[in-house]
């Protein structure tokens, strides 16, 4: 056995030094100024017109989807929605830096990443209407998307749980020899959960190729980040875990893209985790159940409205000569129509039949669930009006 020395790299001092702020500054990567012009000294990532437009268009698409679905919730057509307004760049531009083989484990405000991967409007709608066209079979609340074909793990509500899971998933990718990583999205609020600590530390010790992508949007529902932590954001923690860390302007799509690209390169090359903290702001209410006027000022929101990532990207595209105002308008109009049309179709598709209530608890239905289903079916037949959504299809 070789001798270990856990004090190997530690120097000594003879004075009581209290380390107050022992960090070097963790600056925030910004490539585009808020108005969309390039920083003089900025080295931009390689990004061709097609990809640049795809990033922009996806952000815009999500903005439209969010607006429509918030409205649909107000109209009582869906029970719940959660918008990502103002934070589109964080999800979309990071997803753009990944390979489609990379696994995405998200929190819930990363619909942009999913749209970038190719999730269709119909798919969004079917999940939100819990109808039988959704492969998740309508079992969870709206916005809990998941799609195996797109390597997008089905979302679950408990916060932070996906963080150690992402470490494990990435470990599996490594052991299988896949040229793929896992990206794990979470909010700065979720980063207070014990699972964050466990997951990041394990990834560091077990050399898991995973990107921990924190959207620090200033709020966890009503709780501002100064009541969430006292350190220098989430980035400062990465360092304590011995994890390479990048802080980025989350409203700058190019910076997010560049940071994620670099993080992915490192994760694969060095088989290690990388932490990204994207500084952004939740312009939307937490969800349709929330009303932020109770805990923050309109004025504060306005300051962030001015940093809109979509306008910033559009301006940059315009500088580049890649942006066609008219074409864009047409796309936007089309997207609005598509969403409305899909919504109308989706809300008429029935939910799964009653058999599905006991499927997927296990790989096959055990005796006790079979019994429970049998009684339930008999009961539904007896009271068809009480169970209008399923009585029609009970045999």
């Amino acid at each position, binding site marked *: 056995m070789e001798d270990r020395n856990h004090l190997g790299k530690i120097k000594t001092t003879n004075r009581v030094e209290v380390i107050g702020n022992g960090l070097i500054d963790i600056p925030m990567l910004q490539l585009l100024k808020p108005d969309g012009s390039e920083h003089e000294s900025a080295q931009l990532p390689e990004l061709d017109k097609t990809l640049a437009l795809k990033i922009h268009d996806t952000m815009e698409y999500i903005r439209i989807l969010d607006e429509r679905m918030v409205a649909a919730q107000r109209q009582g057509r869906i029970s719940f929605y959660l918008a990502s307004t103002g934070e589109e760049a964080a999800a979309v531009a990071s997803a753009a830096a990944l390979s489609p083989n990379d696994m995405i484990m998200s929190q819930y405000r990363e619909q942009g990443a999913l749209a970038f991967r190719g999730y269709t409007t119909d798919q969004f709608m079917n999940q939100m209407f819990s109808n039988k066209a959704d492969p998740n079979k309508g079992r*969870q609340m709206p916005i809990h998307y998941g799609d195996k074909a797109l390597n997008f793990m089905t979302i679950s*509500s408990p916060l932070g749980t996906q963080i150690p899971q992402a470490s494990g998933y990435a470990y599996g990718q490594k052991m299988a020899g896949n040229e793929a990583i896992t990206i794990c999205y979470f909010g700065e609020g979720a980063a207070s959960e014990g699972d964050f600590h466990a997951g990041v530390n394990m990834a560091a010790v077990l050399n898991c190729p995973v990107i921990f992508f924190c959207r620090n949007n200033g709020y966890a529902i009503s*709780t501002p980040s100064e009541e*969430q932590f006292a350190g220098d954001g989430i980035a400062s923690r990465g360092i304590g875990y011995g994890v390479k860390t990048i802080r980025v302007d989350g409203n700058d799509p190019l910076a997010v893209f560049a940071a994620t690209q670099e993080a992915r390169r490192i994760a694969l090359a060095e088989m290690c985790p990388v932490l990204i903290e994207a500084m952004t702001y939740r312009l939307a209410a937490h969800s349709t159940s929330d009303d932020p006027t109770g805990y923050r000022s309109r004025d504060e929101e306005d300051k962030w409205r001015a940093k809109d990532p979509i306008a910033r990207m559009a301006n940059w595209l315009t500088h580049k000569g890649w942006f066609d105002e008219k074409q864009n308008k047409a796309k936007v109009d089309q997207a609005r129509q598509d969403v409305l049309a899909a919504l109308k179709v989706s809300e008429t598709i029935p939910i799964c039949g*009653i058999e599905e209530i006991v499927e997927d608890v296990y790989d096959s239905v055990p005796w006790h669930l079979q019994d429970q289903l049998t009684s339930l079916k008999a009961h539904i037949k007896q009271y068809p009006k009480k169970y209008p*959504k399923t009585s029609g299809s009970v045999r």
Partner: protein
Amino acid sequence: MAKMNLLQAINNALITAMTAEEKVMVFGEDVGHFGGVFRATSHLQEKFGKGRCFNTPLTEQGIIGFANGLASQGAYPVAEIQFGDYIFPAFDQIVNETAKWRYRSGGQFDVGGLTIRTPYGGGISGGHYHSQSPEAFFAHCAGLKVVIPRDPYQAKGLLLASIRDKNPVLFLEPKRLYRASIADVPEEDYELPLGKADLVQEGTDITLLGWGAQIEILQKAAEMALDDGVSCEIIDLRSILPWDAEAVINSVMKTGRLLINHEAPLTGGFASEIAATIQEKCFLYLEAPITRVCGLDTPYPLAHETEYMPDETKTYEAIKRSLHY
């Protein structure tokens, strides 16, 4: 007396408790300035200051760990877990720490001042993670008290008793009733006893036992049965741990039949404990098997929520089956 909904009754109980005792402190995710996502803690920070009503970081294990320490120091923490579904990260702190604190120290230290409040239950389109009824997990844990009110009046009296009880109490609030249940609630201070069931309705043919939001389901089923001439006795257990076996035994000795209804899944739900105990204590009095009308043994499904629920028609049919056994 004032008309209050269940949330207002809870808010009122918290104000009453905090006014009467300085060491009552209320905290959890978003409970501070905002007053909690359901607004159960509205205005407490304004009234009592940030020291006594505050937001915590987003960590349930931390909230309960912190609350345990604070209670052991002699305070009366009232910790909110935003949804019952999110209490599980705190399971270790509750089961291994809260519940065993007094015993392991031979009574030298305790966390008797602790109350954990959390909304539970379905019927609000909440799917897997905003609908669970976790009471049975805690009922298997000696050292805890578990309390569930059925309406605003019960909520205020039981919550005040829970905060002041010398033992840690898990107080589960039926969130489906938060705004739906409205009742006359005394504005003054009052307590209702822990560990005692409440006779909601007298009857002679069968005992219907439940708690929380399911009491109104039992009432509806009892009305349906009444049309058939069946007289149901309805008992609200109120305390799941320790539970009032005596009240149930007495009732079953009279009626000869027992039906237990809860929203949580059947297998290992608290109805199983009640059935196991009552079949033993009332063996010679039972005229039919004890019946359980419960949630299915599945995660809580969104699309099939209506089908999943142990509702009044399922209860009514079970009553009939019991009577015709």
